[in-house]
């Protein structure tokens, strides 16, 4: 459920779009991985000022009480820029997991996350983790300390806080650890310069064990994460699609804009069908989540594989349609293409979601 009206959401979206258009450079992705620094603090602060970080926090916690539709609208915009931001942790999953935690020890952290002062990484083997480490082991000892390690933690390189979801015997525990308590943090080289991963080691690290979350909160946190990735995919797909359409109008060969060649047009038309289909699937899934969060499995699965496939397809065709210029690192096309390839590996793959989608049809028929 969302507390925002459609008009509020769209005006929020416009603000974010305008702001990002003016301030978020796609090129910021390039330098991001080269320096061992966290996200651009200025960009973060501005987004906090825009209220973006308040969006998903519940009203009890002083947030705006936004729903999935609101989140998705903002993330379509963020996805279009590629600007490195702690989206999944700070903006989506952590606020959702924390929405019902009233532990005083946590409130301070929640405020830090919401003020953009602290960034938070999602780690562990739980379903809400975008890149779960299915083989991980973790020990929580009697002194309330954690020992273990986990690989491929998104944002793990510099996040101030690590939120760990550890599932064992069908029960999930949540732990919150401060960066300073890591015994080791090894940055991994990634294909997308805007997405950074690390493997993390804990050796009797002090931590806060959070109240055990309900199954519902856990599964909805996963669903929100998955929707967030789909929104980033749609946003990215639309941005590189529009860039490509502009190029087809501007680029002349044989004395004609290349977009006037019929075969090129037809590729564009087909891609546009895919893009709009993904957009529809995404928004419908978010709407379904807001109105009936326990009955949105089919919509969610549909959005998941459609948005993932479409971003992959559009980003790949964008390079082809640009020709040689997009074969150079200077051009932005490959950055979208890398983002598409990376997002496609988060929260499971397309074939898995397609399989789940079909299962919902079978279940309905029984």
């Amino acid at each position: 459920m969302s507390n925002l009206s459609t008009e509020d959401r769209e005006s929020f979206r416009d603000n974010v779009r305008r702001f990002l258009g003016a301030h978020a450079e796609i090129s910021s992705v390039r330098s991001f991985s080269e320096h061992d620094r966290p996200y651009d603090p200025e960009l973060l602060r501005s987004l906090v000022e825009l209220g973006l970080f308040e969006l998903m926090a519940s009203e009890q916690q002083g947030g705006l009480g936004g729903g999935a539709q609101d989140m998705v609208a903002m993330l379509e915009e963020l996805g279009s820029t590629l600007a490195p931001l702690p989206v999944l942790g700070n903006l989506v999953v952590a606020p959702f997991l924390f929405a019902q935690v009233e532990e005083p020890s946590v409130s301070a952290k929640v405020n830090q996350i919401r003020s953009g002062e602290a960034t938070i990484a999602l780690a562990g083997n739980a379903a809400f983790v975008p890149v779960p480490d299915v083989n991980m082991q973790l020990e929580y000892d009697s002194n309330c300390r954690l020992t273990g390690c986990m690989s491929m933690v998104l944002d793990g390189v510099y996040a101030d806080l690590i939120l760990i979801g550890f599932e064992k015997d069908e029960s999930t525990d949540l732990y919150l650890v401060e960066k300073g308590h890591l015994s080791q943090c090894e940055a991994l080289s990634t294909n997308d310069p805007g997405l950074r991963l690390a493997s993390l080691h804990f050796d009797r690290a002090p931590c806060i064990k959070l109240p055990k979350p309900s199954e519902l909160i856990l599964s909805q946190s996963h669903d929100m994460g998955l929707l967030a990735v789909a929104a980033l995919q749609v946003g990215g797909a639309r941005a590189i699609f529009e860039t490509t359409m502009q190029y087809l109008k501007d680029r002349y060969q044989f004395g004609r804009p290349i977009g006037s060649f019929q075969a090129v047009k037809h590729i564009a038309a087909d891609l546009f069908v895919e893009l709009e289909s993904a957009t529809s699937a995404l928004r419908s899934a978010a709407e379904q989540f807001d109105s009936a969060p326990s009955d949105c499995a089919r919509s969610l699965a549909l959005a998941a594989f459609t948005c993932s496939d479409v971003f992959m397809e559009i980003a790949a065709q964008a390079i082809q349609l640009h020709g040689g210029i997009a074969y150079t690192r200077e051009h932005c096309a490959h950055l979208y293409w890398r983002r598409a390839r990376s997002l496609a590996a988060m929260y499971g793959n397309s074939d898995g979601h397609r399989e789940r989608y079909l299962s919902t049809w079978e279940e309905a028929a029984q």
Partner: protein
Amino acid sequence: MTITKHSSDTEIQQAVTAWLEANWDQAERVPRQADKYIEREWLTQVVEAGWSVPSWSSEYYGLGLNGRQSRIIESAFKEYRAPGAARDRYHLGAITVYKVGSDTLKRAVLKELLTGPICCLLYSEPNAGSDLAGVRTRAVQDGNDYIINGQKVWTSNAMEAEYGMLLARTDWDAPKHQGITFFLFPMRQPGVEVRPINQITGESEFNEVFITDARVSAANIIGEVNQGWKAFQTAIAYERLIMGQGVTARRQKGNPTSHPLIRLADRAGKLADSHVRQKIAQAIAYRELNKLNNDRAKAEMAAGTGFSLMSLSKLAMSRIQHGEAALATELLGVEALLDGEQYPDARNAHFDSAKAYMNSIGGGTDQIQRNIIAEKVLGLPKEPEHDKGVPFREVRIRAIDE
């Protein structure tokens, strides 16, 4: 009580109901005051009462009502199962004459059209398919008449029609869009031969129409001489609208409680095969995605921004229909060799596979649809047009002209 656009919905409702009560026997489905049902007589009654075309002006048998008000009348007629209402929505010929005909023409034929005759639309020709404006049917003036020679094709309802709205070329020296005239052409005359087309689906929905020295009065020109292309746009737009409404209502696949592809896969023992499952899932998804696009389009249309989404549905439907039918065929296994009533699954798969071309070819091929999306929606530049501004008699229709 006289109904006008200022009447309340309730007043309209009461008036039409009272009229139907008085004139139509709902149980017997005949007029109350008639010995037997003669369609033209009943329709004349409806027209004279103003129920036939309520949205039109009173000068032409209407009441000047708006769309919502008109629907009240349409619903009442539907409830009483009485024919003759909503001709302003469904009678292609009458609508076209009303929208673009001269006052003289309207006065001469509108009432006749509303009280009976079916009107077909004669536009496609053997050499004017994707290129609709490439009309070669010839109209030559002879006194107050025009003499028509040519061939039309893909005409619906040509067998039943008393009139055909006919595109014919009257000026061969103008570029192709500028030498065409649109006629209200009498079909029941010597020199008009209608032959049904045998379709690959086994159906015969369409006809060829051969026209040899047939005549049409100059008074029957819809719009103006050589301005027929513009007038025709109105007719074709309404034809598509009417067809579209039919298609939407026709079949509701995607029923949540069962899916024919799941059933076929189950029967073939392949429902556990992950490859088959992926294909079925994607086929179902394409249909659901199109439905979601259409829902979004409708919502956006209300806000005046949905045109681009609306334009995708026909193209998307080709992939859906061809894809579902191909998958069904595949799941049949050897049964795909069979056909006919005894093998309904095979028959459906073959029929659907053939019928899918109706969408991907008819009403503008997929290739034409992609051009439209690319140019009208995405704003990509048009191809240099080869026949633009060229006198039509110089436009080639075959290589031999070179």
